[in-house]
């Protein structure tokens, strides 16, 4: 086999975004020698997204400066197994990151905990509503909310999340989310100051008997020093979060919370521009010996390690395992195999609200997670009897930004070009707002990931093939959420409400969310999961997998909070159990 063999390390991390940095810090503190391999470039605030040029909508959003270019590697896509998959030639529906910090650089900062019932989606719903659609491959996580609570807390205090607790050790706190699981203490920072349009939403929702609260945000409401001693500044509501790096250290990212300490540790090493091609295993296939990677000069290296951790983007983790021949690939026909199974996404919709000109929202005063939300229709917070779906989502009036290429709300019926379009854009910019719904996607027998037989990346490897569509559960769920959002919207008394229902097949073209989940699902049953509840590979016990690829289905929240909690949960198991006795942490 090709490749220069390098000196061994204790741990090799594949990818250096959120999970790589979190795990790297935990493992060097435990005394291990840790190497992170990042396929992208080194990035830091004042060189790569400085206040002097970060606010560039064309460059960062429309020309995708921070993302993985499809030319380097992409996926192929089809809606159903009977279709011919074609490559995603340009970015659209989701934006996989590259470079140090990963998606932690360009996220909005919407930081949620999943509901306790989200972790038991099969057992909970079957108990309450009876048998589920047999094609729905949802499963319990093998970990509970209570297991994860300390690790949610740890992540929130790493980041300095701004928010209002709703449930402190079972005590309901006014102004917070009454549906959240009990938390041991409040958020590290108070909620963000609120702009006008979300306040109108709060009032309307409250008047309807719903339970609005200021959404939890990784945008700092005040200066913050985390438990590593790293400081963040106060958010300036500049309105350039998602798809942008933060120029003034006020959005939590690996750069602003971990890197200054981790990179100072002599037991840690980072190599950038180093793309891992596959995980290497010994002749038994039961033990990872390291990874094979290639640098940007095309030189290949074999990096031996005692522990290999996949910390790449969700579907890249699945891709790497498929390329490495670890685990049994999923087959939708037989239903056998767990690798690539349970791919899920997010179903989103919006309701546009158009007000008279006397309402001035100044939409450009925004932050990535600035908004007021209701959780009344998320998870199983409401009775689904007769609704024909399970799960739900939050409804939120976010005031993330007023970036002008992106923010062009026009009433229905407006032409797409010409004088009328121009007037509609100009007249509604200041006086319109949108309510978002953020729905769960349940895993389904025919939604999955495998290797594409026709297309290859620049390294000559088969592309990952994504087969995905929204199913009945998603359409019903999303329509229901959109109805509820429109109801709140009407109560805000705009002159016009435009509910934009999510119709038709899933499309790879318009941007929706970068919340791709599943493919290496976690669970307590090795026949339906790739990793056990400690995120350890069932097949190769010295291989761990981090990130949203372990979600068995995707609840109605943004994933990062749970990714953080799961990473610390797994780190704890690695340090306190695995290192003492290397081997499976759960018997099959």
């Amino acid at each position, binding site marked *: 086999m090709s490749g220069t063999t390098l000196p061994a390390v204790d741990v090799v991390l594949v990818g250096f975004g959120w999970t790589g940095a979190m795990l790297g810090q935990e493992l060097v503190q435990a005394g291990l020698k840790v190497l992170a391999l990042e396929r992208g470039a080194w990035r830091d605030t004042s060189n790569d997204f400085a206040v*002097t*040029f970060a606010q560039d909508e064309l460059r960062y959003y429309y020309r995708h400066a921070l993302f993985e270019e499809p030319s380097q590697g992409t996926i192929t896509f089809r809606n159903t197994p009977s279709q011919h998959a074609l490559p995603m030639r340009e*970015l659209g529906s989701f934006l996989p990151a590259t470079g140090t910090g990963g998606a932690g650089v360009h996220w909005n900062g919407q930081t949620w905990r999943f509901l306790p019932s989200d972790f038991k989606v099969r057992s909970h719903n079957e108990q309450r509503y009876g048998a589920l659609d047999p094609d729905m491959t949802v499963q319990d996580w093998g970990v509970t909310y209570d297991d994860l609570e300390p690790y949610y807390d740890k992540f929130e205090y790493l980041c300095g999340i701004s928010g209002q607790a709703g449930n402190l050790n079972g005590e309901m706190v006014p102004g917070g989310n009454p549906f959240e699981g009990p938390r041991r203490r409040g958020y590290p920072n108070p909620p963000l*100051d609120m702009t*006008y349009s979300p306040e109108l939403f709060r009032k309307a929702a409250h008047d309807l008997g719903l339970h609005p609260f200021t959404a939890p945000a990784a945008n700092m409401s005040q200066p913050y020093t985390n438990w590593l001693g790293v400081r963040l500044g106060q958010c300036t509501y*500049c309105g350039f979060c998602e798809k942008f790096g933060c120029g003034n250290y006020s959005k939590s990212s690996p750069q602003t919370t971990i890197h200054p300490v981790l990179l100072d540790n002599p037991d840690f090493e980072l*190599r950038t521009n180093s793309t891992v091609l596959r995980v290497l295993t010994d002749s038994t296939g039961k033990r990872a010996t390291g990874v094979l990677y290639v*640098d940007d000069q095309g030189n290949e290296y074999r990096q031996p390690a005692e522990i290999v951790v996949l910390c790449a983007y969700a579907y890249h983790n699945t891709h790497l395992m498929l390329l490495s021949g670890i685990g049994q690939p999923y087959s939708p026909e037989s239903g056998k195999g767990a690798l690539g199974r349970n791919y899920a996404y997010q179903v989103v919709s919006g309701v546009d609200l158009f007000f008279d000109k006397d309402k001035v929202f100044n939409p450009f005063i925004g932050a990535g997670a600035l908004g007021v939300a209701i959780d009344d229709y998320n998870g199983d917070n409401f009775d689904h009897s007769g609704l024909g779906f399970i799960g739900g989502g939050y409804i939120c009036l976010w005031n993330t930004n007023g970036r002008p290429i992106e923010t062009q709300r026009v009433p229905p019926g407006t032409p797409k070009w010409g004088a009328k379009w121009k007037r509609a854009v100009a007249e509604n910019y200041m006086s319109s707002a949108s309510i978002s719904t953020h729905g769960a996607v349940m895993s389904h027998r025919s939604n999955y990931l495998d290797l594409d037989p026709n297309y290859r990346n620049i390294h000559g490897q088969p592309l990952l093939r994504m087969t995905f569509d929204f199913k009945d559960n998603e359409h019903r769920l999303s329509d229901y959420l959109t109805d509820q959002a429109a109801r709140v919207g009407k109560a805000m008394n705009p002159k016009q409400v435009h509910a934009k229902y999510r119709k038709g097949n899933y499309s790879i*073209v318009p941007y929706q969310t970068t919340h791709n989940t599943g493919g290496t699902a976690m669970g307590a049953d090795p026949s339906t999961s790739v990793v056990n509840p400690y995120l350890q590979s069932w097949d190769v016990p010295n291989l761990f997998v981090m990130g949203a690829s372990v979600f068995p289905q995707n609840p109605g929240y943004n994933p990062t909070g749970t990714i953080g909690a799961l990473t610390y949960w797994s780190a704890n198991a690695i340090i306190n159990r695995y290192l003492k006795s290397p081997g499976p942490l759960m018997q099959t």
Partner: protein
Amino acid sequence: MANRKPTVLNRRSLLTGAFAVSALGGAALARSPQPPDFDPGNRFRPDEADAPAPVTGERYVFFSQEEAALMAALLDRIIPADDLGPGADEAGVTFFLDRQLSGGFGAGQSYYMQGPWSSGTKQQGYQTRLTPAQLYRTAIAGIEKHAQAHYGKSFADLDASQQDAIVTALEHHDVDLNGAPRDQFFSLLLTNASEGYFADPLYGGNRNMAGWKMLGFPGAHYDYRPYVAQHNKRLSIPPAGIYGGPAWENGK
């Protein structure tokens, strides 16, 4: 007289391309593939800001004179001049597009451009072999042919209502674009027109920040903390781009 050289600022912490980040000694890394040239306390590289260079020159470099005339007329129908603000061409959108198409965007540099090629479903998105630059060039020729065939004149010489009729036909995918994908072209045209009208002026469009002024968008202003709680109030923050604007000049 014991002057001290500010070496902290002169350190080149990072090499271009591959580098390793490590606080390990040189010995441990002597055999590793990349140079250990990184000081964690000094992550900032003072002379390496990844700053955008503004477009330069005045002449078109991608469009021919005829193509530019057609595009200027076409873009002016997408975003016409009125009391709200200048038309697209006056706002620099044609020029913006010329620079975009002559660069990496036009070349489809970031796209996955390997075969096999197949048209696919609408949900599968962009599947043409044409780069954006080729798509425009092909489509422009198709539009001109259409104008000549229907009106006996160049598109640029038609009156506004005739041009609007052709744009409507484009929107309905009723114009033969010499084989270029009609839906792709029209949606790209609308997106690029909007980009040129509203992007930072450093890219050549949004001249005099006309697009931003039309909306009341302050541009690259970085701190709105004093205004967050000022609900329902019209603000008068003079717009500025990444390279500033009149508000940053003394005497204005």
